[in-house]
């Protein structure tokens, strides 16, 4: 998909839904209908998030029959306990997630560039084999992965998670960048080559600046999936308290035999704040870039 289409997705399209034009009765009806439908969908999308958020401000006594109601007294009383459990793990998560996302993006960008523009014999095969890697169920490889980490002496370090997310992020990151670069006309590369620029130089001075939206997508994608990952986190850290991350720490609170729903809700919300913020503030860039690199037939 070319970038002009990407622009069109997010562009205002005045010719169809233009609000300044005088609308006929039928068109007016459809407009109202569309808005009502959109708002109903909005309500359905928001509902679970609303339940999560409001129950974080009700203090310790949160219970089911009252789950949909706004707090009678807004309080932050459950927040210190949730923070005590989640604060350090969340900082740790931020630390490793940022690293793994950046490394993933760089690797994905290089792979994507080569597979889109500097193909070698069998590069299509390589790409297809990479893609298949996106689809494996991770439970299936957990035991060998733990054994591998043990063998290379990585256990006990947060870098086990960096490694896992970088390696298993190669397929999706490569895919996004490859599709992104594929949309850039070859003439640009040709022109660079005529000027005597090397492959690396073309990448650095032409492709890299063009691929900022691709980076945004990959960074957000990897950030979210690493932040929300539970499977790798729980297995590869082996329960070590000095390696607890957001999801495993959250599981301490929500997964115990004794349940305090107030703290449970607060912690769940707290652990979701960073990714929610990312989607709130960077969502539209994400959308843009995602579409430019989506698995598109």
């Amino acid at each position, binding site marked *: 998909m070319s970038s002009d289409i990407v622009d069109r997705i997010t562009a205002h399209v005045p010719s169809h839904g233009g609000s300044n034009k005088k609308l006929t009765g039928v068109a007016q009806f459809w407009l109202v209908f569309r808005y009502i439908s959109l708002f109903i969908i909005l309500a359905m999308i928001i509902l679970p998030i609303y339940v999560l958020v409001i129950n974080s401000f009700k203090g310790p006594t949160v219970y089911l029959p009252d789950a949909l109601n706004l707090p009678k007294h807004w309080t932050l009383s459950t927040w210190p306990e949730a923070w005590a459990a989640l604060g350090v793990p969340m900082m740790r998560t931020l630390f490793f997630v940022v690293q793994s996302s950046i490394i993933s993006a760089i690797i994905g960008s290089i792979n994507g560039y080569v597979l889109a523009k500097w193909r070698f014999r069998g590069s299509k095969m390589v790409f297809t084999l990479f893609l298949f890697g996106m689809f494996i169920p991770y439970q299936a490889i957990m035991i060998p992965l733990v054994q591998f980490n043990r063998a290379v002496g990585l256990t006990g370090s947060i870098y086990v998670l960096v490694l896992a997310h970088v390696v298993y992020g190669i397929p999706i990151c490569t895919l996004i960048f490859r599709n992104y670069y594929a949309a850039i006309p070859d003439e640009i590369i040709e022109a660079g080559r005529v000027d005597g620029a090397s492959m690396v130089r073309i990448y650095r001075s032409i492709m890299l600046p063009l691929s900022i939206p691709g980076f945004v997508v990959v960074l957000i994608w990897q950030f979210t999936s690493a932040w929300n990952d539970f499977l790798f986190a729980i297995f590869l850290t082996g329960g070590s*308290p000095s390696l607890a991350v957001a999801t495993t720490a959250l599981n301490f609170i929500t997964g115990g035999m004794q349940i305090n729903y107030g703290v449970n809700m607060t912690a769940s919300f707290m652990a979701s704040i960073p990714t929610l913020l990312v989607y709130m503030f960077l969502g539209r860039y994400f959308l843009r870039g995602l579409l430019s690199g989506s698995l598109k037939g």
Partner: protein
Amino acid sequence: MVLPHPIILAENGLLMRKSSVRLAAALAAVALVVTGCSSSSKTDSAAADKQLEIFTWWAAGGEKAGLDGMQAAFEAANPDTKFVNSSIAGGAGVNAKAVLVSRLEANDPPDSFQAHAGMELDGYVKSGKLEDLTSLYASEGWDKVFPADLLKTLTVDGKIYSVPVNIHRANVIWWNPAAAAKAGITAAPATLDDFFADLAKFKAAGITGLSLAGKGDWAIAHLMDWMLLASMGPDKFEGLFNGSTSWTGPEVAAALVNFQKALSYGNKDAGNLEWPDAGKLVTSGKAGFFIMGDWASAQWQSDGLVLGTDYTWAPAPGTVGIYQWLSDSFTLPIGAKDHNAALAWLKVCGSKEGQDAFNPKKGSISVRTDSDLTLYDSYLQAAAAEWKVDRLVGSTVHGVNGNNALMAAYSAAAGKYLSGGAKDNAGLAKDLAAAYEAGKA
């Protein structure tokens, strides 16, 4: 709230590069050897080991508080050893077991891990993952202060592989005195007939008779386990797990009729509820009876409820004089990095001080017959008294009677039945028989 400063993270090795972590580890190892030489005279304690890593699923609440108590006891005796609690939560250790399995497979065991005492350890024992601790029982005198019935259950081919730290009781019936009064119930139901009569009274008073928790299946299996015991008696019940009682015979069929009848008095949304939710139905007077282990009492007390006023208890109907027990225990995996520290830890686990630091907070009783009862609340005191005189029978759902495979299939069978998937009682009996077979494989 103050965010942790980067330096704090750096101290944890987080901000170091991989290579520098390795280097630091190497330096630490050298330092260890050097300091180890100078203090080698102290061979009795864990001093030779810099740290102790234990693996539990106690992450929060009373369980964590109890564990902290034992930790303090350990640290007092072994001041030079750092205590590391690797814990993974997940109702009854569902996630913890998975991670543990992966670590044992990778030969990266913790120094000691938590598991239910009894057949749950079977798989670890058979695969040669655990050290024989029998000599510890003699040297620490546990063979004299632990009940003989319990020791018999712990012993596999003449050897004992774990140290139990507590005893929970599974067959307890809980109710709210106010709700019972409203329904005209004045005494605890001692027999199953009394129980069903009382359920009818609750129903007549517009109160759900029996509170059920179906989420995750095990709490329903817990109820079924009690009903089998109550209907069949302890000998026939135990026979189910040694092959002398048939799962598809008339005794089980009769028990399952009772189970079916009990379920018919249950709350409709059982499938959505975890046991604390179901417990709340009882303490808030919305439901009559609740069959649950005595950890319920600890949970409710931490919620600020008062024993005797907000809730009360009795041995579950049909099992008066029987103590259906389960126990958390600690083990010593073969290949543990800090062997001496692990032994020191196990000694604390079995000691009077350790158990009396742990159990009042955990809401369980000490395994030992010589514990200091003044530290325990009235329920636990009564439980401890009965522990000494009652017939002891293991809990199936909590690892005493069968291994992990049996437990999982047993719970699934009950969950399937609750959801209507087993069609009828004969179907359930068949599934239970299959669960028993799964445990033998």
